[in-house]
Structures are given as structure tokens and as C-alpha cells.
């Protein structure tokens, strides 16, 4: 067996004999993608809504139908007086009450204007804002329909304007971000720890005295972790599609290609970390805590890069996850073809080459 293959075999022994670590490495991505996938979402589904409809005419019926059909609301109760509205909130039966004017349709037809009151439980202000926005958007869509039919300007006023994308596709945006973060952190952590561990137990010295060249050592370390990362990639993609219901709109092949390149970049990043420290603990802190913040904040995962000050936008360019997330969004959500993410792929490949070059240089310097 060639020295390189013997070495790879040894790495697999290290991995498979350490059950706990293997379980963590393969389990963390699953847990994280589920947690983040469900937790990081601004979407609020199945909000309970109560309705006060003294008018009970064709327009109010239509609007209520729309609420019933929506995923965002469950119509739980009809109330018949303003006193009852108070009770609904006190007993926590609904988060939102929609109250129509009396003679709603009539007023609308005659004056072209009618009012709907949206009363929300604002103990959680964010949720309150979000669900009133959903409600207004549903009402607006009815208004649009009405205007389309009659070409007369009708105005139904819950004055809150439509702030939200009615399809709420935005929530899918989080999944590429979560993919990018998890793959980067786990892969970087795995390689950095694997190399630093050899330094810590002293076997690295033996390897350096051996005829194996440093590049071969580094590559042999990367191969098993690359395969392990591929397992992680598969599980997180499966969870994204089947548990979080994020469709892969574009080409699966393109998505996998970009992901594999991104994994290489992450592994190389871990390698670089390993050349900077001699302790497994520091390596782990660097590749998790230190990387996590920039990845979360600057990759566009949560906060849009376009809203950042120029210097932060510029800084975000050196975050590999930014390019990956952007590519995954294009392919997975927008359904674009691989040629549209050519730039991202090139940037990631460049990053990989630079990282390997720096690590190798650092690795050799250590021998002096």
C-alpha cells in the first residue's frame, strides 16, 4: 500500500474508533439545520383570529373566506360585541381580532370607503406587527380583486400598508444560510482538530521526520474529512427538502458541485487554523466561536449585505459563506442554472487555492 493510502486508512481508524466524536460530527449538522431551519424564520403560521362581523354581507364573507383559506390564520371564533373582544384577548383565545364596520358593503359601495379594525395582542410586538401585516395583505388582495371587477376606486382601510411579500418566500432564504454556516463550521472544526491533535500528542514530529512530504500529510488528512463532510452535506440537503420543505428549484448537480467546492474551502480553512495553534481547545474555539459571528452576521445569512455600510460590505467579500450562500440561493430558491453562479464558483476556488498555499507555507515554516 502506498504511504498516502496507509495514512488515509489511519485517519479513518481515528475517526471510526472515536464513536462519540463521530456521533457529534454527524449529529450536530442534523440538529442545527432543524433548529435553525425552524427557529430562524419570521414566518408565523396558524395565528388565531377572532372575527367581529356586525355587517355580515357579501364583502365581509369574501374577506373572511380568504382568511380561512390562508395558512397564516385559523379563524377560531366569531364575537358579537366589543365586550366579547376584550374577553377573547384576556382568555388568550386569539392573537388578532378583525372588526368590520356596520353595513360594511353598503358603505363601501356608496362612499368608496370602508373600515376594518385590526386589533392585535401586542404583548409580543414583533408577532403583532407581523400578523397585522399578513391580515392587511389579505384584505388588500380582496380590494384589488374588487377594483379589478368594477374599475371604480374602492378603498378598504386597515391603514397598515402591505409590508410583506405576500408569498412569504423569504423564509426559504434562511435555509441556504444555515447550510453555509453548518458546513463551514463543522468542516473547519474537523480538520483543524485532526491536525492539532497530532501536534498535541507528539506524533506530528514523527510524521515530519518521516519521508512523507507535508503536502501529502495535509491532503491525507483532508480526504477522510471531505468524505465525512459529504455525508453531512447529504443529510442537511435531505432535511432541507423533506423536513423544512425547501424545494431545490434549480439543478441538483449544480448545487452539489458548488457545495463540494465550498466544503474544500472550509476544510482548507480548518487546515489554516491548525497551523496557527498547538492546542485542540484553541483550534476548536477558533473554528467555532471566532468563525461563527462573521459567518452569521456578514454572510448575508440573516442580514442583507446591501443594507450594511460600505466597509462591511467590502469585508463580507472575504467570508467564503457569503459566496456559497449567494450561489445556493440562486440555484435552490431562484432556480437559476449553474452558469449564473460562475462568479461564486470562481471566487470559492480562488479562496481554496490561497488557503492551501498559506497553510502549506505556514506548515513548512514550523519545521524551522
Amino acid at each position: 500500500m502506498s504511504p498516502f493510502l496507509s495514512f488515509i486508512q489511519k485517519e479513518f481508524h481515528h475517526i471510526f474508533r472515536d464513536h462519540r466524536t463521530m456521533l457529534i460530527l454527524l449529529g450536530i449538522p442534523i440538529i442545527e439545520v432543524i433548529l435553525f431551519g425552524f427557529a430562524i424564520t419570521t414566518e408565523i403560521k396558524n395565528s388565531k383570529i377572532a372575527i367581529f362581523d356586525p355587517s355580515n354581507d357579501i364583502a365581509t364573507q369574501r374577506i373572511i373566506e380568504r382568511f380561512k383559506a390562508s395558512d397564516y390564520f385559523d379563524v377560531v371564533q366569531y364575537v358579537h360585541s366589543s365586550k366579547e373582544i376584550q374577553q377573547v384577548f384576556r382568555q388568550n383565545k386569539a392573537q388578532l381580532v378583525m372588526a368590520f364596520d356596520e353595513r360594511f358593503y353598503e358603505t363601501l359601495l356608496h362612499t368608496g370607503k370602508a373600515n376594518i379594525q385590526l386589533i392585535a395582542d401586542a404583548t409580543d410586538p414583533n408577532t403583532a406587527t407581523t400578523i397585522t401585516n399578513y391580515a392587511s395583505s389579505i384584505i388588500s388582495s380582496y380590494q384589488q380583486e374588487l377594483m379589478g371587477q368594477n374599475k371604480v376606486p374602492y378603498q378598504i382601510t386597515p391603514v397598515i400598508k402591505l409590508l410583506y411579500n405576500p408569498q412569504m418566500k423569504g423564509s426559504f432564504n434562511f435555509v441556504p444560510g444555515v447550510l453555509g454556516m453548518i458546513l463551514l463550521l463543522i468542516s473547519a472544526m474537523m480538520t483543524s482538530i485532526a491536525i492539532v491533535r497530532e501536534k498535541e500528542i507528539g506524533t506530528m514530529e514523527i510524521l515530519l521526520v518521516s519521508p512523507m512530504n507535508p503536502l501529502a500529510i495535509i491532503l491525507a488528512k483532508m480526504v477522510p474529512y471531505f468524505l465525512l463532510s459529504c455525508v453531512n452535506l447529504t443529510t442537511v440537503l435531505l432535511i432541507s427538502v423533506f423536513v423544512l420543505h425547501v424545494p431545490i428549484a434549480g439543478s441538483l448537480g449544480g448545487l452539489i458541485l458548488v457545495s463540494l467546492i465550498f466544503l474544500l474551502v472550509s476544510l482548507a480553512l480548518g487546515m489554516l487554523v491548525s497551523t496557527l495553534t498547538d492546542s485542540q481547545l484553541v483550534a476548536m474555539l477558533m473554528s467555532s466561536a471566532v468563525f461563527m459571528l462573521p459567518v452569521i452576521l456578514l454572510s448575508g445569512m440573516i442580514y442583507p449585505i446591501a443594507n450594511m455600510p460600505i466597509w462591511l460590505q467590502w469585508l463580507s467579500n472575504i467570508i467564503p459563506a457569503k459566496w456559497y450562500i449567494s450561489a445556493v440561493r440562486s440555484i435552490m430558491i431562484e432556480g437559476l442554472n449553474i452558469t449564473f453562479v460562475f462568479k461564486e464558483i470562481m471566487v470559492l476556488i480562488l479562496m481554496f487555492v490561497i488557503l492551501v498555499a498559506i497553510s502549506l507555507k505556514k506548515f513548512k515554516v514550523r519545521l524551522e
Partner: protein
Amino acid sequence: MENLQHTDTIMQSTKVIEVNKLVKRFGHFTAVDHISFDVEKGEIFGFLGANGAGKTTAMRMLCGLSKPTEGKGNVAGFDIEHQSEQVKKNIGYMSQKFSLYNDLKVWENIRLFAGIYGMKDQDIKEKTALLLEQLHFEKERDVLVKSLPLGMKQKLAFSVAIFHTPKVVFLDEPTGGVDPATRRQFWELIYDAAAKGITVFVTTHYMDEAEYCNRVSIMVDGRIEALDSPQNLKTAFEAQNMDEVFQHLARKATRKAD
């Protein structure tokens, strides 16, 4: 005449380590200061010195891990500065820190290092069986190294270091933390290796071990202050044992141990 000359050249080529005015500087600090010595084939060469005297730095240069600032060195017939890859192929190395993988089995450790040194699968198989028999490790073949006692681990580490029959084996404080009885067993392995023609270059803290060496050099502040057989050194310094010789020389040190 011709015959004599021939033996002469053979005699010359039996120098496995040749070091001439080797210097290593780190900035303004001279860790190794013009050291020169030769080591013969099959010799057991003790490399002594207090902590910080420059032993490790010198040894790293000989192993091709570190480039000399000045001077020349040849190990196993190759220049340590320009042919470090060749040097690495022809030496074995065992460090004071642990040299084997704890989570690999005994035979897997042997196979790994033999593989790294480019031995053929068939050779590895045959030689492994032989080695396990010699060490009486047959039962431990499939045992993870971490469950072996320290003395056994060190014997195994040494055997692995010379498994590919290097010309020189470098031992960096190989017997640290082991009781005298086990240390003696360990030295039996070293004698066996030397008898087979493997040159042994060993650093140690234990002065009783220094007595086992054919020749001993003592480094003080980056320089070699004494180099001879233990017997001659004791006579020259009028000392009872190597410890006295060492104390006498080490007292001159101005450099602090690190």
C-alpha cells in the same frame, strides 16, 4: 598496498554521521555553536546536555527538520541541508513524547509506519510476525496501543522506529518515566540494533544510561565540551561516575534552562 587502500576507504565510509562546525542561530541567539563530531556505523552515541544546552536543536538539524545556519553535516551519506528528503528516508526517529498512535492496534501502528517508509506489503507482513515474536507481543497483536503499559509501548515505539532498517536511529530521551529494570530491557533492544549495524544516536537525562553508550558527548551552552568513551571521560575528570563528569561540566553553563 591496493588492498590496504581499499580497506581505508571502507573505514572512511563507515562514518554514518559527520558534523563539521554546525551552527544554528535564532536571531541573535546561537542555539548551537560550531559543533563537530563523527559517529561510526553501529556505534551507540550518547548526546548529553542540560535542558536548553542545544541538544534538541542539534538533533533536529541532523534529522532534516531544521536547516543549519552555518556548517556542514552528513547523515547516512546525505547532506543535511540539501538532501534532507534522502536523509529522512534513511533514519528512524523516536521522540520523548509518545511516538505511536494510541487508538491504533499494535500491528496497525507497525503497518502504518512501515507504509510511510515505503516498505512492501509482503515484507511488512513477514517482518511484523517476526518482530511480535521477538518482543513476545504475539498476544498483543490486536490490542490498542493505549492499553499497553508504558514500558511495552516504548519497546514497541523503538522497534517501529527501526522497522524499516534505517542507517541511523535518533532517540530523543526514549526512556523518560520508566523504571530502571524496564530501562535495562530497553537498552538490550538498543544493543541488538547496534549489533545489526544500526547506528544509535541517543539523548538522555539518566547518567546510568550514559554509561551504556560507546561514546558520549556533553553539550554546554551550545558547544560540545567533552566527547569520549565514558571510561576515558571518567579518567580525564577524575570522576567516579558519569554523573560527576556531567555535574563538573554543567556547572560552567551560563545559559538558563528553558
